[in-house]
């Protein structure tokens, strides 16, 4: 069966000092299925956000997607789409929600105008109909008194409401996929819970696929069906969320779990990962996590591939699984 969105060997290149080329996204492969949530998890600089932008072919110049990368939307090769076809994809078949709704919204347009504009960008409807649709969408994303909020400007809305407006804009063209990049990172924790529930409800009601990009393992737990852990431009672990949480197979993933303080259970000293994430100019040639890995051994001087740790569970580690 064809996946809704299939990404194979996605690679993004940027020119670096000294005529070198760096690859902040370096060979990412995953598939997104209808009605499911896939999380891309990692710390800053791992390439997760750039992956999200690359899926819409929005890599900021002078970066570019390598021609060998494969992005297929329902089997159709998106890399060969012209600009017009891409415009129909962006905000059309794929909606986007970013971290900071204040900078993503236009400060001089009302919430209603911005949603209506998104509706009209993809549907041949009148302005009046588009505004009616905007009002319905505001209601759908849980904004009380939508007819009043329609006429308000972003600065008049709270952070949580702005993010709801962003979600309404993303929904305007009835997308099949939502890419949500740190959608709740800028929000208070009580509001964050509301927005995550909203995204989950919309996914269920509309059968959308959600690509949830986040640094927060807590946001992934119980929300994403499957997850990919990213480190230094690569996927280092991939499985169902349950499998990763119950038996993390990559030392980096285990390190992330032992670094996070918890609200329940015994209060123990945290076990951090030593060192810090290297920049793309300083990635080692072998396993990229090698220099920080407590389990490093001689073989780590060469780059491991994603290896089967268990059925449906892969890790980019020589110690994973029973393959020779």
């Amino acid at each position, binding site marked *: 069966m064809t996946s809704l969105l299939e990404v194979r060997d996605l690679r993004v290149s940027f020119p670096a000092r000294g005529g070198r080329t760096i690859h902040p996204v370096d060979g990412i492969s995953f598939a997104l299925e209808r009605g499911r949530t896939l999380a891309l998890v990692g*710390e*800053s600089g791992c390439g997760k956000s750039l992956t999200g932008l690359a899926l819409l072919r929005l890599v900021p110049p002078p970066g570019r997607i390598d021609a060998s990368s494969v992005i297929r939307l329902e089997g159709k090769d998106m890399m060969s789409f012209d600009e017009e076809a891409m415009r129909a994809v962006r905000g059309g078949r794929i909606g986007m929600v970013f971290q900071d709704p204040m900078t993503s919204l236009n400060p001089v347009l009302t919430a209603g105008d911005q949603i209506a504009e998104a509706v009209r960008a993809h549907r041949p409807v009148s302005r009046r109909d588009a505004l009616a649709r905007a009002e319905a969408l505001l209601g759908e994303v849980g904004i009380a008194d939508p007819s009043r909020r329609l006429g308000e400007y972003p600065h008049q809305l*709270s*952070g*949580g*409401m702005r993010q709801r407006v962003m979600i309404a804009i993303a929904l305007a063209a009835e997308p099949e996929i939502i890419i949500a990049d740190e959608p709740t990172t800028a929000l*208070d*924790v*009580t*509001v*964050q*819970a*509301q927005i*995550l*529930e909203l995204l989950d409800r919309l996914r269920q009601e509309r059968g959308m696929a959600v690509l949830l990009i986040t*640094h*927060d*393992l*807590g*946001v*992934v*737990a*119980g929300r994403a069906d499957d997850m990919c852990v990213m480190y230094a431009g690569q996927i280092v672990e991939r499985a169902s*969320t*349950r499998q990763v*949480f*119950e038996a993390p197979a990559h030392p980096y993933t285990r*390190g*992330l*779990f*032992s*670094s*996070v*303080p*918890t*609200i*329940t259970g015994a*209060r123990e*000293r*945290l*076990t*951090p*990962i*030593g060192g*810090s*994430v290297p920049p793309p100019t300083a990635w080692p040639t072998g396993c990229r996590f090698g220099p920080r890995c407590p389990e490093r051994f001689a073989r780590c001087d060469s780059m491991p591939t994603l290896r089967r740790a268990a059925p449906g569970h892969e890790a980019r580690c020589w110690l994973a699984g029973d393959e020779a």
Partner: protein
Amino acid sequence: MTAPAGTAPLLDVRDLVKHYGARALLGRSAPPVRAVDGVSLTLGRGETLGLVGESGCGKTTVGRTLIRLQEPTSGRALLDGTDIFTLGPDALRAFRRRVQMIFQDPYGSLNPRMTVGDAIAEGMDIHHIGTKPQRRRRVATLLEEVGLDASYASRYPHEFSGGQRQRIGIARALAVEPELIICDEPVSSLDVSVQAQVLNLLSDLQRARRLSYLFIAHDLAVVRQVADRIAVMYLGRIVETGAADRVLSAPRHPYTVALRSAVPEASMTPAAGRIVLSGDPPSPAAPPPGCAFHTRCFHPKRDERCRTERPELRPLGSVQVACHYAESTP
């Protein structure tokens, strides 16, 4: 781990109020913003008090007022019995040796044109601590104490990662040998792997130097990791305070219950009965009358009294709670 009975706390804050001016805006007069609206707290020697709450609750303003970066509207804050708020210029200088601050943004809080060594030594220069060679040696010791290489002293902040800069900020605070450090969201801009390193460092330094921390943060799990006691703030007031384990394992104020329940836990064990509050916190410029939380409260007993009568903090078991119906909080 509260201060032992009979000994005075290091810091004793009474009825701290900070209102931001009722300024006329475009001809209309705006009500004052009640950022901090009557906060009392104590902190013992060697103790960590976690001050938690969401944005706009006033927790950062409490910290900034206590270090005299902002002047309070009213209230007292006694450090070893002397009121911080009435200190004259000389006394204030001496006070700044005893109380230091660590900020959230390790990028914005270091002067980009100053070497790391000069930034760390600045406090010692101001307070005329030691000779120049002594200060240089001390900078090297401090850098090593926070887990950095002594040779970094001659380098500039932009050469360092966020976690390293936060370590530099900690070394800078430690340079004048303070007794109390106000930590304002010290790890919230750091990646989790680095955050854990800094939290462990703060614990080690506390033990080695018997430091007191006022640890201001929005992340309950982070606060639980470091705090002996916590105080939960909502709209400028403390709504619940007590031993950290006590407050977080059996919260009595409905807001603490909701905050606790909203923490996204990195665990597949589903949180029992997750409570998702509706709406946003109200503006501190127009706090609701009565209990400020009543507009979002889910307590089955909430009633007219909550809308009209402001609940004061009162003892309940081993904690203090500002809720009329805390005895029956679900």
